[in-house]
């Protein structure tokens, strides 16, 4: 009579094992992590949850003044505030996904060293709690949009806006993928952490957050769209503001890249997860 075991702990493991079933079993934990992030982030602060709003608003205002008014960069005829804000909201979600998951192993070393639960719950929770920030910021964007539309500004919502959930998902997949790759590597090389914030800043300038893609030459446009974040931001802007271009082909490539990055990330993550306590 052979016995059915609940679990077998051994040294080798499957290369791509998403462990989705296990993560699903721990879905309550994912939810509680999200709740914990949300409720503890602004405890003992003056402005509290207002920070969710203030940060993107400030960035947008600074950009409007510096790039729009002083440098006079093109915004495709769209009100500068809306142009920058739409780019920022999307970009901030992407960069939040990267930075919040990039520290998964290091910041949870104590917890991971004492107890087992599917480690993947942690980056998933990070991506979801960043999504909450995104939704709040997006609603503010819609508020401004409404105001501008009522004032008769040159903006109109197109059918592409309906793709927003897919666009956001794309950012989540790409950002989380990069984040967990970095988190896996930072267990060994700590300076990657510094490179992340630095790299993300550079990366932003290669995305149509500040620069309007349609003002670029064809060659530069193609180069920029090879950046998997670019087509997403561009489509988002086209959908809600009706300006810019619709790089659907590049978006397809972006999805492909995102999925590959995520798969590589999961592979690395699962590999590191098993022994990182010995190297961290």
């Amino acid at each position: 009579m052979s016995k059915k075991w609940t679990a077998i702990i051994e040294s080798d493991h499957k290369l791509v094992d998403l462990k989705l079933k296990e993560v699903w079993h721990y879905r309550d934990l994912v939810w509680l992590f999200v709740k914990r992030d949300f409720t503890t982030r602004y405890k003992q602060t003056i402005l509290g949850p207002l920070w969710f709003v203030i940060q993107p608003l400030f960035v947008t205002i600074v950009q409007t003044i510096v790039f729009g008014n002083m440098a006079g960069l093109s915004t495709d005829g769209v009100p500068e505030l809306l142009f920058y804000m739409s780019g920022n909201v999307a970009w901030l979600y992407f960069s939040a996904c990267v930075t919040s998951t990039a520290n998964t192993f290091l910041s949870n070393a104590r917890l991971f060293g004492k107890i087992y639960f599917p480690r993947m719950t942690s980056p998933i929770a990070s991506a979801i709690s960043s999504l909450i920030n995104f939704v709040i910021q997006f609603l503010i964007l819609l508020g401004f949009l409404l105001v501008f539309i009522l004032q008769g500004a040159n903006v109109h919502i197109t059918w592409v806006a309906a793709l927003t959930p897919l666009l956001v998902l794309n950012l989540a997949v790409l950002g989380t993928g990069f984040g967990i790759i970095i988190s896996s590597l930072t267990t060994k090389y700590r300076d990657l952490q510094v490179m992340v914030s630095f790299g993300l800043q550079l990366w932003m300038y290669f995305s149509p957050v500040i620069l309007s893609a349609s003002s670029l030459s064809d060659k530069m446009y193609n180069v920029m769209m090879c950046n998997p974040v670019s087509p997403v931001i561009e489509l988002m802007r086209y959908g809600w503001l009706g300006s810019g271009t619709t790089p659907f082909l590049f978006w397809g490539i972006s999805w492909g890249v995102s999925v590959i990055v995520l798969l590589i990330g999961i592979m690395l993550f699962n590999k590191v997860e098993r022994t990182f306590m010995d190297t961290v």
Partner: protein
Amino acid sequence: MNRSEQDIAVKIVGLKKRYRLGVIGGGTLQGDIQSWLARKRGKEDPNAVIGKKFHEKNATFLALDGIDLTIYKGEKIGIIGHNGAGKSTLLKVFSRITAPTEGKIYVDGRVSSMLEVGTGFHEELTGRENIYLNGAILGMSRAEVDSKIEKIIEFSECRKFIDTPVKRYSSGMYVKLAFSVSAHLDADILVMDEVLAVGDVKFQQKCLNKMSEVSSSEGKTILYVSHNMNTIRQLCDRCVVMDHGKIVFDGDVDEAIAIYSQIQKKDRSSFVDLTNAKRYNRVENTRYMTFKSIEFLGKDENIFSNGEHASARVVIDSEIKVEHAKIRIGFYDVYDRKIGSGICTDVGVIEPGKNSIDLDIDFTGIVDGTYRGELILFTQDSFSGVSEHDIVLEGFWFDVYNKSDIPWNAFKWGSVRLRDIIKK
């Protein structure tokens, strides 16, 4: 004991965990790539310390060295051993915090491990919120916690403060709350590392009772690591002693504790003053020859590899002159079983006063483990009668390191491996 495979809760087979000694990796990406390339091309590692050989840099250490253990459902197993024996590593591998290097663990049932009290508690959250969070980390669903939260709060004795952030808690309250969550888990196998070392005695007692209760009434299996022999005695019905990454004893709790305290007591230092060592009763007060000391030359600690010849200097204080004195050394393993003796048939003439005698001891055949040596000084008269002049029962302790081609189970097979049997 007639238990079938179906009653097994955990089966550990040939479990090993290897750690690399020294600095892991070059520390930088560039260094790691250089080392890796050099390894691939079979060249010397440019990052190795000059003068050190390749294998020295990659010296490894087996924290777990071939663990085999079968645990049946409902058993309460204690794991004891001195620091560094591998207890915590075993629990870590078992709790899936780090993966084993070799071997497998088969588990039947849900495992919940408590390697530290209050892991996953968030300072800013209230006691109640932390119960949910901690419960979820330990694998409970929200509904499960919902159904148990009243019991948990009741058990923790923290009801008054349950909606206060835990950072305001005293450390005792913190522990009580954390333990309460773990104690109310629905897991089939509970793994605990020294968690009861904290908290006041009254609460400790309450926890022990609670655990005995869940184990007997709900049939939970418990793995408990502790240095506190009293709690082990109280809770466990079977006990495992670990030493140097191996299981050296598995069975009765009292017996295990006795063996553990013996391993603890041993002092492997190479110089031992035998003046006041424990002696056989008969020679305790009246003797005219005395072992003063034994020293293993060229060693800091008595650790020998199999096949190594040890040079020992024995100092004997004598009141008379004796010719043809002999020395016998008897060896005991950690279970206090005598494994054999060796004799130096002639140490020459012993003069009145201090005599220094150098001996060569061959440990060939003794398997990996910790041993005790007793020293006997005797003479033999012309009628083959033996008279023993000094008998030191606890002479010295030593370790033999002997990597066997076949995992040797000293408890069952004995501590001496005879010459290999050859097929003719």
